[in-house]
């Protein structure tokens, strides 16, 4: 269980970095985008991750007025965040093929 959730957390972190690198988003928007991708995570689970990514200085949050009125916290990627996303991308490529192959072999 612990290992499984650790693994998922790491992957979710990478996905969040990927979304933020494409556009500046606020919390709710990010949760929606993850769901649109088919990643069915509990909506609340993004906030502890956003806090951690800020602490690690991979993303940066800024309170701004939104077009519809209220203050919202918008997130952007930092330089360190870009690097971290690159590393995640490489690691993922590295894992994806062998794991897929392995699972396909089992199916046969």
């Amino acid at each position, binding site marked *: 269980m612990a290992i499984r959730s650790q693994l998922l957390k790491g992957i979710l972190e990478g996905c969040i970095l990927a979304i933020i690198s494409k556009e500046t988003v606020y919390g709710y928007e990010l949760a929606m985008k993850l769901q649109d991708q088919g990643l069915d995570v509990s909506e*609340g689970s993004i*906030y502890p991750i956003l*806090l951690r990514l*800020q602490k690690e200085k991979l993303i940066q949050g800024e*309170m701004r007025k939104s077009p519809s009125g*209220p*203050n919202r916290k918008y997130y952007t990627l930092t330089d360190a965040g870009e690097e971290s996303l690159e590393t995640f991308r490489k690691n993922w490529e590295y894992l994806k093929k062998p794991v897929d192959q392995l699972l396909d072999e089992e199916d046969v």
Partner: protein
Amino acid sequence: MQSLIAENNEKRKLLNKENKKIYEDMLMYVRLSYKKSEAETEEVLMELLDHLLILQHEGKDASELFGTDPKQYADEIVGELPQVITKKVIMLFFMGVFYFLGVATFVNGLVSSILSYGFGQLESNETYYIGTLSVNTLLSLGIAFLVVCGVIRYISWTCFKNVSKVFELLVTGIVFGTLPFCIFLALFYFMPSFGPSITIELYWLILIGICFYLLGNVFKRKA
């Protein structure tokens, strides 16, 4: 920061009864984690409130956001909030100390002065023994500190729970009210007099109390 808190107070009124209960427990629990950066704390609380309001608008349940165990979720949030630098904690500690001394001395001075000058019930001056006074002050501060920690622990513990009003009244009344008060009284009554003595007019206590309070303000501003 104040504006964010004010905005939170306003927006919270839009929550329905159920969501309000769960959100306010969350708010209290997270804010009571006093060693955390206030800015980050208030910002994440606002994000959660905005998100909850959208869910409410869509007719969805708060568990979409907080999961099935809100306390565990709150612990997760608190665990990820950045710690504040120790300097701030120290300044806040001294602020508390001087506020406590200030209010205690001021009230003591005011009541004694009224009794003495207004009703002739007391002598207009009081003799203090430096040794006794220092020991009593330190012990009082220790007790006050324990009471404050106890209250914070207790409130955190009651978050996400339904505690009966009778139980609450008994516990808070006895543990945080009667008990410390009796210990304070016993301290001042039973502590033997020792050390050099000074005699001052009662109204000085009021002035000293105000000085302590102002000193507390200085620490508050530095924090």
